[in-house]
């Protein structure tokens, strides 16, 4: 994997409206910095995240996708994040099975009070993705071998 010095990854963060989006707001309110590569998409609940959205992001050029939701037990809709947890576990496992770098996808539980955790998570995730370099494998998976 070539590491490009000037590589700035595109990262999509799906945040549930009630905890993690508010957590992201809090990290803004507290002026906690994280890289501008991270763009947040607001979804009502982590269980709204269709695996299709993640693949779509990769398809359109994202290098990393992270899902943030309420901590288990704290879901605004009671059970949403439990379903999200199972779905993401299996999706990530399947991607891993296909040989796609598993660090490109992540789930993190961030509460509305955890602005600092949100910023730290995004810093760490961006660092990981930058180290991994551009996402090519999903695209390359279909290419004929030379």
């Amino acid at each position, binding site marked *: 994997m070539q590491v490009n010095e000037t590589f700035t990854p595109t990262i999509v963060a799906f945040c549930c409206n009630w905890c993690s989006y508010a957590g992201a707001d809090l990290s803004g309110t507290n002026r906690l910095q994280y890289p501008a590569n991270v763009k947040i998409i607001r979804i009502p609940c982590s269980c709204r995240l269709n*695996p*299709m959205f993640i*693949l*779509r992001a*990769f*398809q359109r050029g994202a290098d990393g996708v992270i899902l943030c939701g309420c901590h*288990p*037990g704290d879901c605004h809709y009671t*059970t949403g994040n*439990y*379903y999200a*947890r*199972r*779905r*993401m*576990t*299996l*999706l*990530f*496992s*399947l*991607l*891993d*099975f*296909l*040989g*796609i*770098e*598993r*660090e490109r996808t*992540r*789930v993190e539980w961030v509460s509305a009070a955890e602005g600092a955790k949100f910023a730290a998570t995004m810093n760490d995730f961006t660092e990981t993705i930058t180290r991994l370099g551009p996402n090519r*494998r*999903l*695209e*390359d*998976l*279909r*290419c*004929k*071998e030379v």
Partner: protein
Amino acid sequence: MQRSVIETAASLLETGVCTRVLGWKTGEFFYDVTPAVFTSAEEVRKDMVFTPFCGANLSKYLIAESRKEGKIAVFLKPCDTFSFVQLQKEHRICRENVYAVGVQCPGMSDPDALKALGLKGLTGCVQEGDTLRVDTLYGEKAVPLADALSLRCRGCKSKRLHDCDAIIGTQGKDLQTSRFAQVEALEAMTAEERFAFWRKELSKCIRCNACRNVCPACSCETCVFDNPDSGVQNKAAASSFEENLFHIIRAFHVAGRCTDCGECTRVCPQHIPLHLLNRKLIKDMNTLYGVYQAGADFETKPPMLAFTLEDPEASIITQGRNGQ
């Protein structure tokens, strides 16, 4: 077996138990068996077969057939009955319109396996116990059944017939098999090796949709890939990415509903081992959320529609292995 299947079918029609029979008939070649609906005993006696090549899982056709007028009789092998139950669980089959006949199965053969054994010019074939008597242009050859079995039958999970109105042969039991062996072998590889494996396999895909069309779990009224409103419609892949998307999403959509019948791999004209994707998910669900077999009963909640408070976090898939 062949005779009793055909006689049962004919008598079901003659006695008026059903008005149609869903079974198999041969196509161009004797080993090219295809599903068929018969409406009279004459038709049944003329065309219906039950040979070592009746791999086709007939349960999916019941979604449409069971909604038609009159009762339909269907012949199901043990693995097909799992799909039959699973589809009922999803309210897809009108059970009252179906007369299900379970047929015990010694394992279905694969013409490619015979060819691989060096047999050429196949003209016919009869199974006798553990042996397959194959007629060829060059004379009759005896082959051990085990060597002729199709890939999926070598890892048969169960000989149990579920939810049948009648049974031909004897009721069987669940089997202990090593059907996850190949999944485990892949898991043991490095990410690069897995990537190379799948790149080799998936690059063969011609996107004929055979896997989707034969799959009993892929029985949506309209597939998301055919639906212009879904935002992901792609009847023909516009980019190399979309092939991956298709197989990943397909595996994900059938997760927890796939009975591991193996039809996807059987029908793939490019011989891509697609069932491995499904088996990987089945194996993960079994280890992470407790053993679950889709279609084994009517009550258990599928793992994708359930949860426990103690489920492992998604990071579990990266645990226990060194970061690479």
